[in-house]
């Protein structure tokens, strides 16, 4: 199977050099051709996208953009649509995630971008989304208009299918000429989405491009960074620091670094009736995208004092992960990942020799690993790929101090607690640096309009043009009908 990644409006495919990336999983292989553009081609493409966005995308009412995006998402949600069938066939081979996980994950995720949800994105950031279409009266007086970047560059990372769509769609909503650089680990979905948009509205398809260069290729990266006025970048802090160094000082840089998620379970959630279903939800959050998502849990803090003890709860989570691995086997790990899992497990095993309270559950060869610690421990990453540490605490009040040293990496925390506890603990977690608090089972599915990393999806992208009252008054003096 051969797939071609990218979307290059205005560039004849025959003039582009292509490199082939090989993927194999689940006994199948796929070759993905990715474009390698010359500096001249990159410059021409940037110019084309910028110009097309200026003359077309910027003239569209935001409501029409929402309708077009909705139509494109509908095709990806329709399991009979050829694009959707292609995604279901190819993405498991490219990313290694099992077919059912890809199918369920895509459907759950794409739902966030249907028309009503897109309106939520708009409403979250703009009291009056019409500011994207024209000048609107401002509260302080005068008028305000919000304009997206002329050229918005996305640098995506990672193999979680569709992660790219979040920022891509936000950029299109603010009418930005858009160039996205796909990750080598999942180079396809963003380009497909661009092509679907082009099928629905060919002129809109001219306003966005999907490109590729080898991550860290400073020269290719610089060519694009110099073209963009806003850059959204995903990746580890080292990669982001390297990009930031090359971003022109006049451009806006919006980085999204790697994050560590965790969960908190209060004693009230641990009665014999609730503990089972809760353990199942925890296992689902752990297994979704093999914990590669920024929102994925890597550690769980469980309060003592419930009918089900933290240790028993850890065993239930382990059982649920076992059951889940039958239906959704873990993706095949590369040597480095497997070594990481083994090293994490054996470190915990060794710890168990020294301290009585640490227990490694399950067998080394299992497709998951749960470690239980009876002593409170600060938040630290697991080995991902369905590895979870469950730590007992006397009360959830102990947790903020255990997570706050990792402040720079915090984002999502799932909480199972009574309403009063939820709000009390949420305030403490917010102080510690947590920006998203959700229920178990929803960690990997942020709701539409979620403020990623506590920032504004759309507002961070735009620039406001304001007509002050003085200009309005001065204009009045110059009106032909002035007395």
């Amino acid at each position, binding site marked *: 199977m051969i797939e071609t990644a990218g979307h290059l409006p205005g560039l004849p495919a025959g003039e582009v050099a292509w490199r082939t990336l090989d993927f194999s999983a689940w006994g199948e292989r796929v070759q993905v051709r990715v474009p390698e553009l010359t500096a001249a081609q990159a410059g021409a493409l940037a110019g084309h996208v910028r110009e097309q966005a200026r003359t077309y995308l910027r003239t569209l009412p935001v409501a029409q953009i929402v309708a077009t995006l909705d139509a494109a998402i509908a095709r990806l949600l329709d399991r009979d649509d050829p694009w959707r069938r292609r995604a279901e066939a190819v993405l498991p081979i490219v990313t290694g995630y099992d077919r059912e996980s890809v199918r369920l994950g895509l459907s759950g995720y794409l739902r966030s971008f249907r028309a009503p949800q897109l309106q939520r994105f708009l409403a979250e950031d703009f009291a009056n989304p019409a500011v994207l279409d024209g000048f609107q009266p401002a509260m302080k007086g005068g008028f305000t208009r919000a304009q997206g970047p002329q050229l918005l560059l996305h640098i995506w990372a990672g193999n979680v299918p569709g992660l790219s769509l979040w920022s891509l769609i936000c950029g299109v909503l603010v009418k930005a000429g858009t160039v996205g650089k796909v990750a080598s680990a999942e180079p396809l979905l963003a380009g497909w989405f661009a092509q679907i948009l082009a099928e629905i509205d060919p002129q809109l398809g001219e306003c966005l491009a999907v490109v590729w260069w080898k991550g860290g290729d400073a020269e290719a990266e610089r060519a694009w960074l110099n073209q963009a006025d806003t850059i959204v970048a995903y990746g580890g802090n080292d990669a982001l620091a390297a990009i930031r160094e090359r971003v022109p000082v006049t451009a806006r840089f919006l980085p999204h670094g790697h994050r560590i998620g965790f969960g908190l379970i209060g004693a009230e959630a641990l009665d014999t009736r609730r503990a089972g279903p809760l353990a199942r939800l925890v296992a689902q959050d752990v297994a979704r995208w093999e914990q590669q998502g920024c929102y994925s849990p890597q550690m769980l803090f469980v309060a003592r004092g419930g009918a089900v003890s933290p240790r028993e709860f850890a065993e239930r989570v382990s059982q649920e992960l076992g059951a889940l691995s039958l239906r959704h086997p873990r993706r095949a790990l590369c040597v480095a990942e497997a070594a990481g899992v083994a090293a994490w497990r054996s470190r915990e095993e060794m710890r168990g020799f020294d301290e009585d309270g640490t227990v490694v559950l399950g067998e080394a060869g299992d497709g998951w690993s749960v470690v239980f610690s009876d002593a409170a421990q600060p938040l630290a*990453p697991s080995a991902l790929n369905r590895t979870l540490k469950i730590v007992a605490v006397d009360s959830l009040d102990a947790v903020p101090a255990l997570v706050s040293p990792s402040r720079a990496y915090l984002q999502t925390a799932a909480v199972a607690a009574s309403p009063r506890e939820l709000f009390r603990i949420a305030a403490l977690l917010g102080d510690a640096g947590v920006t998203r608090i959700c229920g178990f089972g929803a960690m990997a599915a942020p709701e539409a309009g979620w403020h990623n990393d506590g920032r504004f999806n759309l507002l961070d992208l735009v620039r406001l043009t304001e007509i002050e009252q003085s200009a309005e008054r001065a204009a009045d003096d110059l009106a032909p009908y002035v007395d």
Partner: protein
Amino acid sequence: MTQSEIIEALLAFIDQDDASEAAFERMALAVFAYQFAHNAPYRRFAIQRGRTTLTVRSWRDIPAVPISAFKTLTLSCTPPEAAERIFMTSGTTQGGVRGKSHHPTMAVWSRSMLVNFRRRFMAGRERIAMGILFPDDVAMPNSSLAHYLALAKQECGTPDSEGFIGADGLDLPRLIAALERAQESGEPYALLGASFSFVHLLDALAAQGRRFALPEGSRILDTGGFKGQSREMTPDAFYDALSAALGVPREACINMYGMTELSTQFYDNGNAVCPPVKSGPHWIRSRVVDPVSGRDLPEGVTGVLVHHDLAHFNCASAILTEDAGVMVEGGFRLLGRVDGADSKGCSVAVEEFLRAARG
């Protein structure tokens, strides 16, 4: 077996010319039984893995200790304070925590090192003039490499052999003088040391525009990689540069692969082609495993290396390394360290987190 019995048996085993699979297995099971009886943390580890002297039937069943365990556990069959020598890792990973190997006697370690070194590096010579690019074992008493090189110099070097790394680093003028003498003498010369020291030497020679053509039969032994102590070079660039700067062909550039957690070293037969096949003597055997399950992988499939070194009798003979490798005809190819992967997505992984924590 008692300690003296096991030492005697091992010295005799090393002195054999070779060992069959069955002979290795007999010795390996005896060493395992000794360690299981006398090394309490290792026994706990083995039991946790469901492996005891009753269930282990083949050397491949002997549970391999991850080398990180040498950092947290004292893996010694004898009281650690009674050790003749303690070798420690450099502590470059895991925030300065150093893995330790205790040696109640250096007799087995030294026999293992010398028999193998003569066979694999000396190429039939009794002695050769040596230049050592590493501190001596007085400066670094806990470094197994310093001890290895000191032993090599003492037992296999000519009297004019010398070390060139002192308290102030590389003594370049003295080394250049030695290389000039070697070049004029027409007698083969051997340079041995840490890979990163060779990079420093290469850079210094390049800066001075110096090149040497060491006499035929000269050899180079590098080991240990660059470890952030010098710039990184690809193996091909490294051996090309060595060959060009010193006039030693790549076939005579031997890379030694050794570990603090072993008492035996692996060698290749030159680095004309990289990565070369590495192999060890008859008292060490290697496997390539899936690190998660610990199961053997077939020849040609990349996994993580496990070594069974009978000479490491006082600690744990079977160790799970952090090195990727692949079994091939005649040995294995070493494919670099497996540091644990960075996240494939956007969740923070252990390595990045630790890097940040270290600052």
